[in-house]
Each structure stands twice: as structure tokens, then as C-alpha cells.
């Protein structure tokens, strides 16, 4: 069923404004998506009617807030088809989810000489926590290389795997290039030698159907704000068998069963990993974002986004001086590029003058940019509320900008 995009656009108040005298065209969705009215209403509604601390008070408001909070956990479980909602941990973002695994799983299971594998495509938040861990533990960080199209080299990955490999932490979809990685293959290969796999799902959960049981990943990290939800909220999925044997990440309230000065016993999962008062309002509002996605249907969203990507490839491709970056066979609706002779920064500022919001720079993937021999790129990333006519307008602006250096 084709989606009614005009109707969808009406649900997003932020889209209806002018920027620098031009109607806003928001193509920075890989950085963060906009939020539908239902999410905004849920945020204010929570503070207006239900605000109270969860899992503690014996009063009606606390009970209501706790119920809604736990309903989102159930909603997330369904969204990624986890086996049970106790496998869903709320964090503050993909970054914290990865840090949680690196410090908790890492502390317990990684020792001197062990190996951690990541890829050239990683976001800094899936590089630095592992570097820190490896430095502390004297473990070895290995990096899967890519080809010039921005695709992981699976054969090379197999060569890197050894009996010393404890965890493979890999981005599902590249934020800088849009490449969809063959994660099912990677997970299968890693499991054959007994390594665990963490998927950085920051950019995949919004575009692809995710079934953690089918993928068989051990961990999945993602952020609500890239899924039409609020900022400051992330999710860590982990298999029960692992979460149970991992030590807590932070200490405090919520995560304990009993505290004496002599010894503390820890709560069950997921609470063991949720120390302190959590981000209650945003968790509750996130359910509305999940409802929004399921009301449209992920496959319908994907179809629309794929059409936008095709359209952009065709129309930008005709611009003199347009150089696409990342041309993997399997991609989501992200188009990274440069204009011959121009710095991506300058292109971004000029697009902004035309009301068009894109991301420019290294996209928190400096090692990837070094591999590609680039300082950075311009990145346009499309979401369900974007239209072909917006892409046409960007093509007109881009052609004008490109002409400065490409006569």
C-alpha cells in the first residue's frame, strides 16, 4: 500500500517552517529524525498527568507511570522480536549501550591477548569503548577492511577470526555511507568459533525489519531519537543467558536487591542494568514512536525511502562535479557525496542558505574517511516524511552550487 506522505507530514509540526526564507527541507535524518505529534503529546501528557517515580511508590500515579514504562519495554521487545522483555535495557543512547557491553561483558570475559573485531565502517562510539577496553586489558583490536564501494570484505573477516576472538562489534548499517552489512553471515561465522556479536543498530532499526532471534545477535544497541522518538534514550538488547552472567554497569538505586554495608545483592535483569531513576518520560513517549512506525508498516516505509534514494541517485548523478561516496549494492536511504573542488562544509552552508538541512564532515567516522582518502562528505539522509519534490529542489540548489567550481 503506498503511503499518504502528505498526511504523514502533517503529523510532524517541525517540518512546517521556513529556514533562511525558504521552506525547510530536512535531510539530516541519519543524525536524528523528527518527532510526530503523538510523541510530543505523550511527553507533555506524562508530566501533566502521571509524573512520579517508578517501581517504588505505592500510590496510583507511581503505578500508572510504572505500567506505561514497562509497556514500552514490551513494545521494544516486540519491535525487535526479542524472546522476552527482560532482555531490553534502557540506556541513554547507542553510545551508552555499547559502553555498557564493553565495560560489563568486557570486564568479565576479556583478558590479556584476547581479540575484539570491529570494521572500518564504525562510528566512533563503536571504536573508542573497545579501544579503551583493549588498552586496559592488553587485548587486541582488529579491524575488518572494506572495498572502495564501502562494503565489508567477508573473506578478510574470516581471516581475522581466531579462537582468541571474544566479541565482534559491528555496525549493521553505516551512518556515513548507508551500506547494509551482511550481519547474518558475520554472526554465523563468529558463533562458529564461539565469539559473541554486538550489532550497532543505530542506523538499521529505522529502515530494516529487525528480528534479533532470527539474526541470532548477542547484543543490539540503538537510539530512540533516530526512530522518531525522544533524545537521551537508547536500548540495549542482550540475550538473557549473557545479561545474567554479566556484572552490573553502574551502582545505585533500582539495580539492587538488598544493600548492607557488608554486601549488596543485585536485582534481576533488566533492572540490574538500570541504576538510578531512569528517563521515564522519554521511555513512555517512545512507545508512541513505535506505534507510529507500526501503523505505517516498516516495509511500506522502506519502499518509500528506497524510491527516494533511487530518485536522488538519478537526479544528483546528472550534476556536473557530483561524486558519490559509498556505492554499496545494499544500501539504505543515505546518499553521501562530494562536489569536485569544494569542501563539504561550504556545500552544507550553501544548502542551508537554501533551507536544506544536510550533514557535512566526517560523520564521527574518521578512520573510514581516512580509508577513503577524504576529509569528509556531504550526507543527505531521507526519512518517511520526505518527498521526491524536496529532492528535486535540492538537485536544483546543488547544481547551482556545483557550478561555482564545475563550469
Amino acid at each position, binding site marked *: 500500500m503506498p503511503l499518504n506522505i502528505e498526511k504523514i507530514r502533517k503529523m510532524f509540526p517541525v517540518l512546517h517552517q521556513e529556514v*533562511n526564507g525558504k521552506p525547510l527541507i530536512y535531510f539530516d535524518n541519519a543524525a536524528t529524525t523528527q518527532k510526530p505529534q503523538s510523541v510530543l503529546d505523550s511527553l507533555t501528557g506524562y508530566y501533566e498527568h502521571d509524573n512520579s517515580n517508578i517501581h517504588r511508590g505505592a500510590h496510583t500515579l507511581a503505578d500508572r507511570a510504572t505500567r506505561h514504562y514497562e509497556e514500552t519495554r514490551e513494545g521494544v521487545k516486540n519491535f525487535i522480536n526479542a524472546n522476552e522483555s527482560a532482555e531490553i535495557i534502557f540506556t541513554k543512547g547507542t553510545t551508552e549501550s555499547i559502553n555498557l557491553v564493553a565495560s560489563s561483558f568486557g570486564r568479565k570475559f576479556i583478558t590479556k591477548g584476547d581479540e575484539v573485531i570491529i570494521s572500518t565502517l564504525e562510528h566512533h562510539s563503536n571504536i573508542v569503548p573497545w579501544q579503551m577496553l583493549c588498552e586496559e586489558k592488553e587485548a587486541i583490536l582488529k579491524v575488518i577492511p572494506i572495498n572502495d564501494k564501502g562494503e565489508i570484505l567477508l573473506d578478510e573477516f574470516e581471516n581475522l577470526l581466531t579462537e582468541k576472538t571474544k566479541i565482534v562489534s559491528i555496525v549493521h548499517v553505516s551512518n556515513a555511507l548507508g551500506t547494509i552489512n551482511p550481519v547474518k553471515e558475520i554472526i554465523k561465522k563468529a558463533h562458529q568459533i564461539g565469539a559473541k556479536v554486538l550489532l550497532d543498530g543505530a542506523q538499521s532499526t529505522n529502515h530494516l525489519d529487525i528480528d534479533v532471534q532470527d539474526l541470532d545477535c548477542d547484543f543490539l544497541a540503538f537510539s530512540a531519537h533516530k526512530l522518531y522518538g525522544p533524545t537521551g534514550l537508547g536500548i540495549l538488547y542482550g540475550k538473557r543467558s549473557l545479561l545474567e552472567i554479566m556484572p552490573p554497569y553502574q551502582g545505585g538505586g533500582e539495580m539492587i536487591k538488598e544493600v548492607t554495608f557488608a554486601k549488596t545483592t543485585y536485582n534481576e535483569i533488566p533492572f540490574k542494568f538500570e541504576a538510578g531513576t531512569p528517563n521515564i518520560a522519554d521511555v513512555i513517549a517512545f512507545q508512541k514512536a513505535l506505534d507510529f512506525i507500526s501503523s505505517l508498516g516498516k516495509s511500506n516505509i522502506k519502499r518509500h525511502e528506497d524510491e527516494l534514494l533511487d530518485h536522488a541517485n538519478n537526479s544528483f548523478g546528472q550534476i556536473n562535479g557530483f561524486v558519490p561516496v559509498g556505492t554499496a549494492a545494499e544500501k539504505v536511504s543515505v546518499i553521501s557525496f562530494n562536489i569536485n573542488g569544494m*569542501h563539504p*562544509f*561550504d556545500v552544507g*552552508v*550553501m544548502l*542551508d*542558505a*537554501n533551507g536544506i538541512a544536510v550533514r557535512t564532515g566526517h560523520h564521527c567516522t574518521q578512520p573510514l574517511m581516512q580509508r577513503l582518502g577524504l*576529509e569528509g562528505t556531504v550526507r543527505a539522509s531521507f526519512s518517511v516524511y520526505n518527498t521526491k519534490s524536496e529532492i528535486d529542489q535540492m538537485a536544483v540548489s546543488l547544481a547551482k552550487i556545483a557550478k561555482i567550481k564545475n563550469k
Partner: protein
Amino acid sequence: MSSIQDIQDQIIEEFAILGDDKESTIYYIMELGGQLPKFPEEERLEENIIKGCQSKVWLTTREEDDRIQYLADSNTDITKGLISLLIRVLSGRTPQEILKADLDFIDKIGMGNIIGSQRSNGLSAMIKQMKLYALAYQAKQNV
């Protein structure tokens, strides 16, 4: 030679003609960048890169008759345009004049809105570095 204030007033006037249209303002800044004299390649050194700028900026100086000549370059055309404005105001002046200069044209032309906050920080870093050079020359001239 016109005073620092005269040149700033000229710049304010030029930008006033462009009005509120951000696009033409940016094209204008880039055009100015294109007119920046060529940077001496032997000075394109790590130690001449200004810290605190998002884009790369190289800055060096020459002393001529107790006056400072600034030479600069950047890998982005907009930043080059911004530098060329600073050079137009400050280059060829004595360290004392440079240290005293109140660069009010930047606020008056609304540069913050045109280039955004990140680049504004970069612009401040450039000004700081230019004034540091002036301070160093002043100290040298006073011995």
C-alpha cells in the same frame, strides 16, 4: 592608509547592500576567499595551523617596517573569505593598532547568523591568533 575603523565601516556597508539574503552573502564571502593571495607553500606547516577551527586554517606573518603582514589560507572557501576580511582590516598595521582594534564589524554584519556558531568560534580563534602575533611582535620591538 585608511584607519581600521574606516575599513570596518566599508565592510559593513558592503554587507548591508547584500541585505538579508543569506545565499548571496555566502557567495560574496566565497568570492572574497578566491581573491586571497597565494599562501607560501613552505609555510604550510602543522605549527601554522590554528587550533579551534573546524576547517583547516594556516596563518603566518611577515614584518615590514614595523608593520605586520598576515598570510593565511584555508581548505574551505567560506573560511578563506572570512580570513580575507580579517586580513583586509588588520594586515599592514602596527602591533599596537592591531592589539587595540575592536573588530565590531563582525557583530554588525551579523556574521554569527551567516556562518553559524561553530564557524564563529573558529573566527574568534583566528582573531585571537592574529592578536597573539601582534603581541609577540610588540614584545620584540620593545626590547
